[in-house]
């Protein structure tokens, strides 16, 4: 199943000296989407290469070399979030007030506030240029999220980790995780609409 990108297709790993040139940029791009700054991303990639070097003998070749390196990098990223989660308040509810898109009371309670309604998007997912843009804007929108929301979003929706695994890694209660995910997705939708798709509001 491994369609290789320049890496050898054999069951053996290529010479570690070539890893930086063959996989370096790819791993860096992968890391920088998920980690906030360049130096953290670089450190994660370097740690990945060194960990891979030590674990060379355990490579069985069921997956491609790049897939194997990415799986090591994934673990580095998860470790980073685990450490970071100790400094972050997952019960921070301050944003509740400003975060409310819905009318609070009256006959229309629970319906969209006039200025907060979603607008139509103009985007073609098959367009390659838009695919590239997507990752750029995704990164910008994650940067705008409070750190605890960003972390949860990356692990769940980008890394596709299971909810219970995320609860363990970040030490969050499942009900709390559910609320944070809802906020993350809501914020991301709004942010993409604002900075990327930038459509005029149909009703305001």
């Amino acid at each position, binding site marked *: 199943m*491994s*369609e*290789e*990108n320049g890496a050898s297709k054999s069951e053996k790993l290529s010479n*570690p*000296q070539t*890893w*930086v040139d063959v996989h*370096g*940029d*790819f791993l*860096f*791009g*992968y*890391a*920088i*989407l998920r980690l906030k700054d360049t130096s953290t991303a*670089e450190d994660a*990639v*370097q740690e990945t*290469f060194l960990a891979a*070097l030590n674990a060379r003998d355990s490579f069985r070749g069921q997956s491609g070399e*790049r*897939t194997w390196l*990415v799986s090591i990098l994934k673990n580095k990223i998860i470790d980073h979030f685990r450490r970071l989660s100790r400094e972050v308040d997952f019960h921070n509810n301050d944003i509740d007030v400003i975060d409310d*898109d*819905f009318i609070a009371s009256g*006959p*229309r309670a*629970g*319906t*969209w506030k006039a200025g907060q*309604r*979603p607008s*139509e*998007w*103009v*985007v*073609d*997912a098959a367009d390659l240029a838009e*695919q*590239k843009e997507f*990752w*750029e804007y995704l990164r910008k929108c994650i940067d705008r999220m409070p750190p605890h929301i960003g972390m949860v979003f990356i692990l*769940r*929706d*980008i*890394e*596709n980790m299971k*909810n219970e695994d995320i609860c363990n890694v970040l030490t969050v209660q499942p009900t709390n995780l*559910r609320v944070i*995910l*809802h906020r993350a*997705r*809501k914020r991301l*939708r709004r942010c993409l*609409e604002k900075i990327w798709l930038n*459509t005029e509001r*149909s*009703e305001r």
Partner: protein
Amino acid sequence: MAEYRKERTVKKRPGMSAKAMLMMSKAMGGFMPTCREVSQLTSREFDEKLLFRQRLGIRLHLIFCKWCRLYRNQLQFIDNFLRRYSADVEKAPIGIEISLSDETRDRFKRAIKDNSK
């Protein structure tokens, strides 16, 4: 995968009137969710299977509510994007297109060399 095209003729169609909402709510025996609840359930549906009455509530609400339809479609669009392009790391652009600086590249190569012995 869903594509979004601009509807040039913007119809002045309201989200849901308070009256319609109230009527639906009664018809559903109080189970008709509000927009707030639909947005929460829309998110939960990515993580867990909803109860039958929750799914039914969403369906009914969406018939009448353009805003929640947009909200839900757009969340699913984002999710499709993420799922489609993060499934296979061997070929997909799952990150930002970026190059390591020459310095960093050299630093990595040295580190690999030093640790290879």
